[in-house]
């Protein structure tokens, strides 16, 4: 079973997370600069229920992997992306039906190896 790990983290954590993933043999990933908010709606200091939603810059990492590697990856990302403050981010695990490597037409697990 293939899974996609999609995580939203603080931009200043990206380097560390990227290097650690390389060490546990993650071959490929996609990184996007994104904007978003969580339960605090972009506000960290005060509770302001009527204020407009504020979107803060974040980084999104996407990695497709085999199911057996998911736990190791999410614990690596979790321990490094942790900031002890709100807004450290989230990790989503999503089922992937199939993968195709365009150059070789390989499909499935061999397409990510």
């Amino acid at each position, binding site marked *: *079973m293939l899974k996609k790990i999609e995580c939203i983290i603080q931009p200043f954590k990206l380097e560390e997370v990227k290097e650690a993933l390389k060490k546990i043999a993650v071959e490929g990933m996609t990184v996007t600069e994104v904007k978003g908010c969580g339960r605090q709606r972009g506000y960290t200091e005060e509770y302001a229920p009527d204020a407009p939603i504020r979107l803060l810059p974040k980084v999104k990492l996407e990695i497709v992997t085999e*199911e057996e590697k*998911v*736990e190791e990856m999410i614990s690596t990302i979790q321990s490094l992306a942790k900031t002890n403050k709100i807004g450290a981010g989230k990790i989503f695990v999503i089922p992937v039906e199939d993968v195709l490597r365009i150059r070789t037409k390989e499909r499935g697990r061999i397409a990510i190896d």
Partner: protein
Amino acid sequence: MIEKKKKTNPWQHALQQLDEVAKRIDLEPWIHKKLRHPKRELIVSIPVRMDDGSVEVFTGYRVQHNITLGPAKGGIRYHPDVTLDEMRALAMWMTWKCAVVGFPYGGAKGGVACEPTKLSPQELERLTRRYTSEILGMIGPEKDIPAPDINTNSQVMAWIMDTYSVDRGYSVPGVVTGKPVVLGGSLGREEATGRGVFFTLLNTLKHLDQSIEEKKVVIQGFGKVGSVVAKLLHQEGAKIIAISEVDGGIYNPKGLDPEKVKAHRREAGSVVGFKDAEFITNEELFKLECDILIPAATEEQITEENAPQIKANIIVEAANGPTSPSADRILKSRKIFVVPDILANAGGVTVSYFEWVQAMQGYFWSEREVNLKLRDIMTRAFHRVLDVSLREKVDMRTAALMVAVKRVAEATRLRGLYP
């Protein structure tokens, strides 16, 4: 050693619980009366040829309390204290446990009165096969599905499955759960009860707006359940400050490493003697300064004597019936948040249910899939009970029983009374 106290008759205890809930939910008298009586009870004599050539006769039981929602489900235990009343109570609690998590199962329990540590593996196999043969007409994948309990394991389940299959003339993996994986057991079954307790505790902390980190946890029992709970909590940053077993416990206010304790136990046969800790008795264990107490041993460990001295403000019942009825009243008046056994330790029957589903389909899931589904079911059951507890302003035990009895009652009402 814990002094042997006179235990409450478990069946009287179970009936009393039912009576109280029946009153609270305004249960129709005919359904109440029906639920007070087990559906079927079988007492069997089990002659076993011992290794020295002599023959011993043991007494075994299988009680099906209720099968309104589906086939009966419940463990088989080998223990000298096994009695008919204990089986009845445990069977009734299985009915409630299956109903509270929402499985299409009724409740059962079985056991053989024996001292398994005094039996050789061969004697244990002959005992298991003869017991299975005596209760054969009562069990089956659509009728009643046994599982491991105290002093029974996946090997015992394999023998039961084999005995049943030989009688039928074909393999019937769905007749028991808790089998070895190669015979159709489920991945994740061994750790299921402990993992379920762990999820329940996380849900409890979330509800109480507390974090797991640095929480001081005391665990009574370090077997199939306690050791798994300890490992998972330690991984999440909780501090396991004390662990005990029948012969006493170990205490270190700075926290114990469950993996190291486990390694020590493998060599020494008990947690006692672990080097980074001091010795404590089981009685002292209950008086320790801590945040969370997890009884994961046997019945009636929290009594009216030690209940007033418990310092924890959260108790998660990993064992079956660890709190005596009088102790329960004390905990309630002290406003300690108690997550009852039928909810907290339902992880075992949950993965048993998964195993049965997988066996019926002949299609198997990955361990990750099992654990995720387990978390989902435990979390939904927790909130179902919590909602009732908050709405009706009752403790979690009463709320769990209300959810369970209502569900069985609704099914009974819909099916009606035959003829």
